[in-house]
C-alpha cells in the first residue's frame, strides 16, 4: 500500500524538503556558523516595516474576504443543490485565469486614467482622479479578489452541513431570524470561518506578483524582500533567513488554529 506513496513522496523530498533544509542551512552558514542574518531581521527597520505591512495586509485581506465571502457562502448553502453549484462555479471561475492576467486587469481598472476614475469623472463625482492603485489599497483589492474562493469554499462546506432543522427549531422556540442567526448559525459556521481565514491569511503572507504589480513600490511585502535580496544583492543568506522566519510564522498560525478546530477540518477534508 505505502509503495503507492513513494513517487509523490520522492518528488516532495527532492523538490521541497531538501531545498528547504538547504535554505535553513544557508541562513545560518556563511564562511562559518553565524546568526548575523537573523540579527539583521530583528534590528533593521526595513525588515520590521515589511513584516508589519505584510501582516497588516494579510489581516485586512482576511477580514475583507470573510465579510464578502460569508454572504455568498450563505446563499450558496441555502439554495437548492442545482443552484448552489452555479453560484460556486461563479466563485471559482476566476481561478481559471492566471494571477498575472488578473493583476493587470485590476491595473487597467484602477489606474489614474483607468475605467473607474474616468467613469467617476464623467459622472461629475470627482475632479481629481482617485489614487486607487500603486499603493496598499490596490494590493488589497486584487489580493481579496484572488483569494476570495479560498474563503468561500470552506465556509460553504461548513454551512452546508448545518442541519436546516436547527434553524427551524430556533425559530419555533421563539428566536427571531437575527437571534437564530447569531446564536445558532454563526457559532456553528465558525469552524468554516477559521479554516477560510487561516488559508487566506497564510496565502497572503507569501503573495508576490500582486503586490509587486499593484503596490507601485510603496507596498513592500516580505516576499518582495526575499526576491530583492536574491536578484539585486545576491544575498542568499539574507533571503533564506527571511523565508525561514516567514515559514515559522505560518507554522505558528497553523498550530494556533489547530488548537481551535481539528486539523482535518482546517485542510478542508471534512
Amino acid at each position, binding site marked *: 500500500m505505502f509503495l503507492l506513496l513513494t513517487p509523490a513522496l520522492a518528488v516532495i523530498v527532492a523538490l521541497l524538503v531538501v531545498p528547504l533544509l538547504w535554505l535553513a542551512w544557508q541562513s545560518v552558514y556563511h564562511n562559518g556558523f553565524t546568526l548575523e542574518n537573523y540579527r539583521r531581521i530583528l534590528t533593521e527597520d526595513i525588515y520590521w516595516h515589511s513584516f508589519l505591512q505584510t501582516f497588516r495586509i494579510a489581516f485586512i485581506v482576511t477580514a475583507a474576504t470573510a465579510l464578502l465571502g460569508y454572504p455568498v457562502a450563505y446563499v450558496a448553502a441555502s439554495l437548492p443543490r442545482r443552484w448552489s453549484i452555479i453560484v460556486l462555479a461563479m466563485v471559482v471561475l476566476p481561478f481559471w485565469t492566471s494571477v498575472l492576467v488578473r493583476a493587470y486587469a485590476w491595473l487597467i481598472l484602477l489606474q489614474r486614467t483607468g475605467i473607474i476614475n474616468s467613469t467617476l469623472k464623467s459622472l461629475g463625482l470627482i475632479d481629481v482622479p482617485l489614487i486607487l492603485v500603486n499603493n496598499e489599497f490596490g494590493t488589497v483589492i486584487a489580493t481579496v479578489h484572488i483569494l476570495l474562493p479560498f474563503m468561500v469554499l470552506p465556509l460553504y462546506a461548513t454551512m452546508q452541513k448545518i442541519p436546516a*432543522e436547527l434553524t*427551524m427549531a430556533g425559530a*419555533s*422556540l421563539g*428566536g427571531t*431570524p437575527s*437571534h437564530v442567526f447569531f*446564536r445558532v448559525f454563526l457559532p456553528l459556521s465558525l469552524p468554516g470561518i477559521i479554516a477560510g481565514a487561516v488559508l487566506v491569511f497564510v496565502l497572503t503572507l507569501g503573495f508576490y506578483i500582486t503586490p509587486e504589480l499593484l503596490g507601485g513600490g510603496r507596498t513592500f511585502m516580505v516576499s518582495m524582500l526575499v526576491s530583492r535580496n536574491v536578484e539585486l544583492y545576491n544575498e542568499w543568506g539574507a533571503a533564506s533567513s527571511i523565508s525561514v522566519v516567514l515559514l515559522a510564522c505560518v507554522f505558528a498560525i497553523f498550530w494556533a488554529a489547530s488548537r481551535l478546530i481539528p486539523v482535518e477540518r482546517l485542510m478542508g477534508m471534512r
Partner: protein
Amino acid sequence: MNIAKNIESVGVSIRNARKSYGAFHALDDVSLEVGAGEFVSLLGPSGSGKTTFLGILGGFVQPTSGSVFLGDRDITYAPPHKRDIGIVFQNYALFPHMSVGENVAFPLRARRLPKSTWPARVRDALSMVQLAGFEDRRITELSGGQRQRVALARAIIFEPRLILMDEPLSALDKQLRENMQIELRHLHQKLRATIIYVTHDQREALTMSDRVAIMNRGKIVQIDTPVRLHDHPTDSFVAGFIGEATLLPVEQAGAEYVKLGSYLLRSAHPVPPGKEIFLAVHAEKLLIADDTDDGFLNRMAGTVTEVLYQGESARVFIQLDDGTRLSLRQPSNHTGLTKIKSVGSRMTIALHPQDTILVPKASY
C-alpha cells in the same frame, strides 16, 4: 415556577388547508379540529402529507389556500417565531454547541426574559423529563433517549399553547420507544397541553392518542378514537392500514348478510353501500372454533397451511375450501396453543358478528 400549572392549552383548527406543487397536491383540502388539551396523532404512510401538514402548523410551509387557527387567533401567515408552538423534531435538533441547560434556556433567552428567572425554570423543565441536574452536560455526552428528553424539555419550557411532535421516537430502539410512549402519555396528562403527534407507527399512535387521523395521498381519510378506528374503519384503505387485516371481497346478501365464497356471514353492522365490499378480518379476532361455541358465530372450515410461533402469540395460516387464505393470531398460553391443529389437518374457525367488519372500497 411550574410549567404544568402555567400551560394554557388551546384548540387548533385547520380549515381547508391545501398545498400544491404544480398539479401535485401534497395536502388536499384538509380540515382538522383539535380540542384544547387533546392528543391527536397523524398516522399515514410516507408521502401521505403528514410532514407538509406539520410544516403548515409550524409556519415553515405556506399553504396554497386555507387557514390555521390557534384558539381564536389566525396564524396562517404568522412567522414560526411568533406562533408559540413547541416543536420536537425527528432528529431532536438540539444545538450541538450549547450545553443541555443552554439548549433548554434558548426559548427564554429568545424571549428576552430576565436571566435570573432561567435557572429555576430550566430545573423545572428538566425534572419534568427526569433529567434533573443535567444542566451542564454536553449534548454529545447524552444517549438518544436523553437527547429526546432534552428536546422535550426545550419544547415545553416556554409553556407553548400547542406542542407538535414529528416522529420523535423513531430513532430510539424498541424497548426505549415503548417506555417513552408511556412517559409522553403521562407528560401529556400532567401538562394538559394540546399535542399533535406525527408518526408512521400505528401502534405508537394507538397507544398514546385520544384520536388518530389517518392520512393518505394528502387527505385525512378518517379521524377517530383508536378503538373506533380499529373496529369501524371507513374504507378498505384504513382497514388494511390498521392492524393485521386481511381484506376479502364479499357480496351483499341481505341487510346484514354477505357471502364470502360459499359462506354466508352475518355482521352486526349494516352492510355499506356500493358494489365493491370487503370483509376486513383482523388476525386477532378470528377464533378457533370448538363445540362449546355459541351458535351465532360465523363459521368457516379450512386446512392449516402454516403455523408460526412468534413469542407472545402464534400466527396460524388457513386455506378455506374455496382457496381463500386467512390468518389468525392465537395467544401463546397453554390453552390457546393446544387448540391449534397441526399443519395439513382440518380446522374450523369462527368470527363474531361484531367482529365481522365490512368496508367499501377506498375511492382513491
